[in-house]
């Protein structure tokens, strides 16, 4: 049977096996599974010695003896043989035969995967074709045919099953090797004169070792299941005791002595479950170590909760101060729940006001919390994230702890969003047109025809040369600049009061950036929207914004009218941001180191 083997994460080779083992033992499920498998392994080794009787000694006097009678602890089977002795002896054969399958699969799959992945070329295509062929075969039919040819040997049939399972290892190793082959450290090893054998064992085997162990545990379970299944069909070697053979015997007496099926069923079932649970526990341990690493890296960017220092404020000029406040954020804290129950805070209490018709820039380097602020206004923080403290007042509506019902009336219609990366923000499975029409029908209640007309008009408005063609296209058929225009059209399609644009030009070509900024400015004036423009580029702020707030490490450090901040930036961080564009003339240069700002 070509069973599905769940994908296994590939981790970097730096993770030592010992720490994985320790992690595994700390997981109660993994520990229990490991303990049971150790027990099975002991029985497999010493079982025949422990057996109280000859497992094949039949006797007419003891047929179907109930458990406990005449010293037969687990009773006797349909031929009067001692069930306990058979169970103990069968363990050795069943486990041994399953290991034959795993060893064959490992030998073929790992070697083939290494050679195909490392050397590529014709070997690559031949072995990929072969694995495709093997995986297309229903395994059990092959095993049945093989039995017709080779006779009822459990060892031979498991060796063949190993061949059938080898693609599982092949694909795993192949994928890892092709990923690693072109890594710089492998190139470096090659340049420094290491032979291929050394490179493979040092750099490549260490990458695939853990996933291969997981896969091996899964495949041992599958092999036991298949082998018992064949014997259950009566196709096994009847002269040796096996779990499946015992089950088959019990099945023939299912009405008289169903308890005969219990012991082999338990042996097969518990062993298979333990192997799967062990594999899962291993995978969890691997995944946890890789996410822990990722989190540590993320933590470095976000930094520890900084002291909330005074915000450098600038007096508003008369024109800007006149507008009515549309969005008012007070003492906003955003935190992410961690598996251990703690909360990692990424925004540490910020105030932000946006007036009607105002373009407000939110500027700061990556990880400063500006995007988190934008998402919390939209109520679309990633999983685990939430507003842990503070208020978000939007035209009298409280959004900080609002549920889906409140947000459904706000999103799209009153607050809209233009994302950073255009291509990944369009659903590749639907046409551009349907993605524009659907929200208009839901939010504005337009008919399909009216929504289509409006979508076409919007596509023309955002400067797409052939609206009809774009409307009918799929996202992968248009360019990034066009996709960003489509997303802008979608954002303004329901006539919002506030447009949140999250680095709307960062992912675009320099030539397209200016056009998109012009478009945003024109639409903002045309629709009379307020705009929150998240960016790390003071050039963009200077170009578009009325007011700006400077964010650093989850706090707003300076806020005020753009002109005032450009002329008299007081906070050292703001100054360093400004210096970055003024001196280099390169708006996206490196920012000043954080330590300057501790004042």
């Amino acid at each position, binding site marked *: *049977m*070509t069973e*599905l083997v*769940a*994908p296994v994460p590939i981790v970097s080779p730096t993770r030592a096996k010992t720490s994985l083992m320790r992690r595994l033992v700390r997981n109660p499920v993994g520990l229990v599974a490991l303990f049971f498998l150790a027990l099975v392994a002991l029985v497999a080794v010493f079982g025949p010695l422990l057996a109280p009787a000859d497992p094949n000694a039949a006797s007419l006097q003891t047929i179907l003896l109930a458990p406990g009678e005449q010293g037969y602890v687990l009773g006797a089977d349909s031929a009067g043989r001692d069930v306990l002795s058979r169970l103990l002896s069968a363990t050795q054969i069943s486990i041994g035969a399953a290991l034959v399958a795993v060893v064959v699969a490992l030998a073929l799959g790992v070697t083939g995967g290494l050679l195909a992945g490392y050397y590529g070329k014709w070997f690559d295509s031949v072995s990929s074709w072969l694995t495709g*062929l093997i995986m*297309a*075969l*229903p*395994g*059990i039919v092959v095993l049945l*045919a093989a*039995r*017709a*040819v080779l006779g009822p040997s459990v060892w031979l049939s498991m060796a063949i099953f190993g061949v059938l399972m080898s693609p599982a290892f092949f694909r795993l190793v192949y994928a890892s090797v092709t990923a690693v082959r072109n890594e710089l450290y492998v190139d470096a090893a090659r340049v420094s004169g290491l032979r291929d054998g050394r490179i493979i064992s040092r750099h490549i085997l260490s990458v695939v070792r853990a996933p291969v162990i997981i896969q091996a545990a899964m495949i041992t*379970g599958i092999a*036991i299941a*298949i082998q*018992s*299944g064949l014997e*259950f*069909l009566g*196709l096994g070697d009847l002269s040796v005791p096996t779990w499946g053979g015992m089950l088959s015997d019990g*099945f023939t007496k*299912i*009405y008289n002595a*169903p308890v005969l*099926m219990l012991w082999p069923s338990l042996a*097969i*079932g518990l062993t*298979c*479950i333990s192997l*799967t*649970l062990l594999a899962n526990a291993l995978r969890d341990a691997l995944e946890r170590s890789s996410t822990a690493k990722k989190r540590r890296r993320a933590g470095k960017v976000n930094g520890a909760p900084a002291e909330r220092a005074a915000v450098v404020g600038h007096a508003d000029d008369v024109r800007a101060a006149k507008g009515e406040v549309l969005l008012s954020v007070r003492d906003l804290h955003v935190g992410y729940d961690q598996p251990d129950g703690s909360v990692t805070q990424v925004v540490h209490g910020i105030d932000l006001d946006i007036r009607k018709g105002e373009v407000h820039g939110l500027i700061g380097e990556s990880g400063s919390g500006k995007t988190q602020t934008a*998402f919390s206004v*939209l109520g679309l923080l*990633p*999983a685990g994230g939430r507003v842990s403290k503070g208020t978000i007042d939007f035209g009298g509506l409280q959004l900080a702890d609002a549920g889906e019902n409140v947000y459904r009336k*706000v*999103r*799209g*219609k009153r*607050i*809209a*969003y233009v*994302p950073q990366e255009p291509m*990944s*923000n*369009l*659903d*590749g*499975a639907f046409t551009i047109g349907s*993605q524009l029409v659907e*929200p208009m029908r*839901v*939010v504005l209640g337009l008919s399909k025809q009216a929504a289509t007309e409006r979508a076409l008009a919007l596509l023309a408005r955002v400067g797409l040369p052939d609206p009809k063609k774009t409307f009918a296209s799929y996202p*992968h058929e248009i360019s990034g600049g066009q996709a960003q225009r489509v997303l802008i059209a*979608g*954002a303004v399609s*329901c006539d919002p009061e506030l447009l949140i644009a999250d680095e709307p030009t960062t992912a675009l070509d320099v030539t397209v950036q200016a056009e998109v900024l012009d478009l945003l400015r024109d639409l903002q004036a045309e629709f009379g929207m307020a705009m929150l423009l998240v960016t790390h580029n003071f050039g963009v702020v200077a170009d578009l914004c009325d007011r700006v707030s400077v964010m650093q490490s989850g706090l707003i450090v300076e806020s005020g009218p753009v002109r005032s901040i450009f002329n008299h930036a007081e906070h050292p961080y703001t100054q360093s941001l400004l210096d970055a564009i003024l001196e280099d003339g390169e708006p996206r240069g490196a920012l000043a180191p954080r330590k300057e700002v501790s004042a």
Partner: protein
Amino acid sequence: MLTFIVRRLLSGAVLLFVITTVAYTLLYLGGGDIARRILGQNATQEQVAAKAVELGLDKPLLEQYGGWLSQAVTGDLGRSWFSGQLVTVGVSSRLSVTLSIVIGAVLIAAVVAVTLGVLAAVRGGVIDRIVQFISVLGFAIPGFLIALGLVLLFAINLKLFKATGYVPITESFAGWLASVTLPVAALAIGAIASVTQQVRGSVTDALNRDYVRTLRSRGLGSNRVVYKHVLRNAGGPALAVLAVQFVGLVGGAVIVEQVFALPGLGQLAVQSTTNGDIPNVMGLVLATAVIVVVVNLLIDLAQAALNPKVRLS
């Protein structure tokens, strides 16, 4: 589209050719004294030799296989050496039994697995852990053990279903339904477990995509986004697993049919392989290989319908 189908059918034909060649060669090499086995111990040496000539067993491998192949292309798979029945008749009558339980199991698995997988991915928390735990158990326990458990519980103890036997659908629909319920359930549980894990994984993955946030920012409810956009995007990987399951279930059916004494391909496979009935075994190999090719083609077409990026060329 049409060229894609033609190309896939051609590569399928190549696959069939390779598989039958390998199978025939193996059967030829390990065939042993089949004529003796057919005639029994009491036949004379002359009778056995005459039988071997009659079956063409005295000819070299290439000639035998060539003969089989040239007939097979015309749709003639010969007759069983033991029962004398036409292989096409024997295989196709049993194929309908096997396919009815396999297709039933796949359909049920698809519906249940999508429900559970989406539930686990969207709700998370306790529900997710329960679904994951159950699907690990369902994946780990061999299908025939589940079948045995179902027989013991529902047929022998509760007497809700008959333990064995098959009622053709043409005879009585209710009878057919009662006779396939337990086998379908036994097959479906393992498939549900695997497909649920895949659906959960790919829905979780799709939920984290940027476009989900963007669609929600436009005012679409989260249910609408999940059932229209996320599910369609998660459908591709789930379908691929379902295809693998289909092939696996054809194999699994061999054993499950034996538990419930269903007259399907499994029974024929066990009989024919133990006897060395080459025409029947070849018919079975061909039938399963055709199923694999057809299922994979259908799944690829479905993938293309789901995902416009998959170009059918």
